[in-house]
């Protein structure tokens, strides 16, 4: 991650995680302000990402002009055994 921090006289650094975001806190001795630089989503050191598989592409026949009732199934695996949350989204093109 590229971070562009321009401080006149940085004197202290600390990192923190608040909620799901991680940040770098920098103290500026010249204007006596502390600035927070967002480092993006926080990850726990050593924690591995899960894998997910939605299966292969397929076709179904419409059951009416409105389309078809389709069953979706995905499997996921987490090497750390973390509980996983699924979310589905999509877009359609005629």
């Amino acid at each position, binding site marked *: 991650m590229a971070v562009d921090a321009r401080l006149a006289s940085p004197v202290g650094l600390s990192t923190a995680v608040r909620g799901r975001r991680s940040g770098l806190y920098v103290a500026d001795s010249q204007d006596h302000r502390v600035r927070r630089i967002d480092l993006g989503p926080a990850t726990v050191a050593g924690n591995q990402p899960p894998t997910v598989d939605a299966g292969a592409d397929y076709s179904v026949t419409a*059951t009416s002009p409105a389309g078809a009732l389709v069953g979706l199934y995905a499997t996921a*695996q987490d090497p750390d055994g973390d509980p*996983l949350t699924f979310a589905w989204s999509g877009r*359609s093109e005629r």
Partner: protein
Amino acid sequence: MNGQSVAVRLPIGVNAVTVTVDDAHGHVVSDSIEITVVGENTFTGSGEIVTPPDDNIPSLAGTTAGRVSVTFLGQVLAPGLTWFARAPTRLAAPSGKQLGSAPLYYDVATTSGCRRRRAPLLRPERDELRVP
């Protein structure tokens, strides 16, 4: 291994579906598939037999055929979609009567072009319906 299944109604056409998984430790991964909902199952010719899928059961890959066939006895002049506009309904037997097995009633609709399209249905024959 975790799994999740959902049933959604998708329109005719190509549908890009994405599943996203979050482990609550900052890792969010996703996978996508394309599901094509085909809008034609009735094709030109004579003696066309169509087996529309059952709308009560979510379609999965390879399981799109229903249990009841519709036979077009006339000529199909333009392709289209044939479907059951209403789910099978079981009606009670008349008072004092008892049915060996309850009948199933289907409303059949089609967007295909065929002769005598408005002719009255149907002659049930086991699990087969015939469109005159």
